[in-house]
C-alpha cells in the first residue's frame, strides 16, 4: 500500500514539471503546425486564411528546397567525416605521453568555447578574406593567386569553419574512450604479432565504436541546425550555395515575411530530423549491445 501511495504522490509532485515540459515543447510545435496551414504573411496582416497544404506544396517544389536539402546533408556529412577522422588522429596523438601534454590538451579543447558567430567572423575576416586574410597572405608569399574562399568554395569554407568548432568535441570524447582501453589488450595484440596498423584496425577502432556513435549522434543534432556561421559569412549565398534547411526557413519567415511558408519548412525540417534520428538510433542500438 505504501508503494502505491508513494507512487501516486510521486506522480502528483512530478506532474507540474511534466506538464510544463510538454507545454514548452508542444505549444510551439502545435502553433507552427497551425501556421503552416495558413496563408500568413507579415506584409499583409489580417489576411490570414486556411489554405490547406498549399504552403507545403510551394516549399517542397521550391528549387531552393532541394539545394538546401543537399547543402544540409553535405554540411552534416562533411563536418562529421572531418571531425571523426581528425578527432581520432588527434586523440591518438594526445594519448601519447609527451612534455606539456596538459597544456596542449587544453589548447585543443579551446575552440569549443568560442561562440559560433565570433569564430565565423574571425575565419571570414582574418583568415579567409581574399585581401587581408592570413590564407591570402600565405598564398601571395608562395606566389599563388589568393582564393576567395567564401565566394568560390562557399560550402566547403563553411564546412571548414564548423569542423574547426566541432573538432575539439570529437577529440575530447574519443580521447576519453581511448584512455579507457585496457593496455594489456594492446600488449596482447602486440604479442599476437599485430603491427601498429593492425592494432589500430582490429583493437583500437572497435573499442572506439561506441564513442564514434555518440559523437555522430550529438553532432548530427547540432549540425542539422547550423545557422550563425552561415548568417555572418555568406547569408546563404552566393545564390543558394550555402543555404541549408534552417537558413531557408529563416529566409522565408523573416526575410520574405512568409510565416506560413516558413512554418511549413520548419515542419519539414522536423520530419527530416526524425528520419535521420531513426537511422542514428538503429546504428546506436547495434553498437550498444556489444
Amino acid at each position, binding site marked *: 500500500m505504501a508503494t502505491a501511495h508513494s507512487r501516486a504522490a510521486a506522480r502528483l509532485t512530478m506532474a507540474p514539471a511534466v506538464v510544463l515540459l510538454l507545454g514548452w515543447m508542444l505549444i510551439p510545435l502545435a502553433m507552427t503546425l497551425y501556421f503552416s496551414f495558413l496563408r500568413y504573411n507579415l506584409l499583409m496582416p489580417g489576411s490570414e486564411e486556411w489554405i490547406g497544404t498549399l504552403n507545403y506544396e510551394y516549399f517542397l517544389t521550391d528549387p531552393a528546397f532541394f539545394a538546401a536539402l543537399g547543402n544540409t546533408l553535405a554540411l552534416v556529412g562533411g563536418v562529421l567525416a572531418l571531425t571523426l577522422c581528425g578527432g581520432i588522429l588527434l586523440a591518438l596523438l594526445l594519448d601519447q605521453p609527451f612534455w606539456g601534454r596538459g597544456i596542449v590538451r587544453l589548447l585543443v579543447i579551446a575552440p569549443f568555447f568560442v561562440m559560433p558567430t565570433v569564430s565565423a567572423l574571425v575565419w571570414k575576416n582574418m583568415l579567409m578574406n581574399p585581401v587581408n586574410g592570413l590564407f591570402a597572405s600565405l598564398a601571395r608569399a608562395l606566389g599563388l593567386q589568393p582564393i576567395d574562399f567564401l565566394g568560390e568554395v562557399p560550402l566547403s569554407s563553411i564546412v571548414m569553419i564548423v569542423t574547426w568548432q566541432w573538432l575539439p568535441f570529437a577529440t575530447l570524447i574519443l580521447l576519453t574512450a581511448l584512455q579507457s582501453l585496457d593496455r594489456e589488450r594492446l*600488449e596482447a595484440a602486440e604479442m599476437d604479432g599485430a603491427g601498429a596498423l593492425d592494432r589500430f584496425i582490429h583493437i583500437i577502432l572497435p573499442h572506439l565504436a561506441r564513442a564514434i556513435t555518440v559523437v555522430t549522434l550529438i553532432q548530427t543534432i547540432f549540425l542539422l541546425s547550423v545557422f550563425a556561421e552561415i548568417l555572418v559569412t555568406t547569408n546563404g549565398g552566393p545564390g543558394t550555395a550555402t543555404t541549408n534547411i534552417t537558413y531557408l526557413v529563416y529566409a522565408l519567415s523573416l526575410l520574405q515575411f512568409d510565416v506560413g511558408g516558413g512554418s511549413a519548412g520548419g515542419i519539414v525540417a522536423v520530419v527530416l530530423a526524425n528520419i535521420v534520428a531513426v537511422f542514428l538510433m538503429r546504428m546506436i542500438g547495434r553498437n550498444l549491445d556489444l
Partner: protein
Amino acid sequence: MGEIVLKQITKSFGDVSVIPPLDLTIADGEFVVFVGPSGCGKSTLLRLIAGLEDVSSGTISIDGKDATRLPPAGRGLAMVFQSYALYPHMTVRNNIAFPLKMARLDKAAIDRKVEAAAAVLNLTGYLDRRPGQLSGGQRQRVAIGRAIVREPTAFLFDEPLSNLDAALRVNMRLEISELHRSLATTMIYVTHDQVEAMTMADKIVVLNAGRIEQVGSPIELYSRPCNRFVAGFIGSPRMNFIEGGEAAAEGAHAIGIRPEHLALSTESGRWSGTVSVSEHLGSDTFVYVQSPEVGTLVARAGGEVPVRHGDRVWLTPQAGKLHRFDPQGRAMSREKVLS
C-alpha cells in the same frame, strides 16, 4: 628449442632500479615459476622476457638466438595476461584465430588450428560466443587457446589464476599442468601464490626486490631454503622463527621450524604454552600456541586433535627438521641439529 638465457639483465624506470643485474637460465621444456611478494619485480622480469619492456642492460637469448632487441612478436613467445586481455568485440573463434590472422595464414589452416585448440580446451561449444558471455574459467581457457595456436617457443603466464575463485583455481592449475605435460613446451609462470608455485613448478625462482633469492625444485626450496626469506615464503602456514636464547642454544642467530615438524602433546615436550586459536580444517588442525619461552608458534596437528582455546600444550620439534640462520638471515648447516 625453447631455452631462455638471461645474462646480467637490469631494468630501471628513471632513477629507480627495479631489477639489479640478474642471471637466469631456463631449460627447454621446463615449467619455471617466478614467485615472490607483490612488487618484487616478477611481472617486470616476465615483461622483459616478453619484450613488452626493454632491458636497461644485459642480453636475453631465446632458443639460442639473441632476442634482446627483438620486438615482442618476433620472439616467438605467447603470453597469457592476468586480465586475460581478450578482444571483447570478437567471438571466441576470432579471438583464438587473431594471432594466426596476423601471421597471414590461409583460412583453412586457421580454422583447423582453432578447432584443434578449442577441442583441447573444451571450448568447441563456445566458439561463436563473445568473451562477455563466458565465465571466468572459460575466458581463461580462451586466453590460453589464443596462446597455444601460435605454437610458441615458450609460454608466459602472468598471474593467470588470480581472478578465479578458489575451486576453479585448483582446476585450472591442474589443466595448465596437464597442458604442459602434453605440449612439453617451456613455460614461465608468475604468481604470488606459493601453493601454485609448489604444485606446478619444475623449478621455482624466488624473487625479492628484483633479486633472485633462490632457484631450485619445489622440494629443494622447501627442505633446504638458503635464507630466511625463502624459508618464510615457501610453505603454508609459514615457518616459525625463534630468536634469542633458544636459537643461541642451537648455535644460531635464529632457528626456524615448520608447523608440520612440531609435535603437539598435552603432557610434555620442549616448549610449553597455551593455545590461543585452533583452526580445524577437517584434515588438519593449525594450532596457534602462545609460549612464554619462544613467542607464538603455529603447529600442524591431525584433523581430530581435541585442543581448544586456553588449553596447556607442549611442542617438540622433530629431530633434524630445525633450520638455523645466521644474523644476515643466511641458512647455516644443519649438522649440529642432526648430531
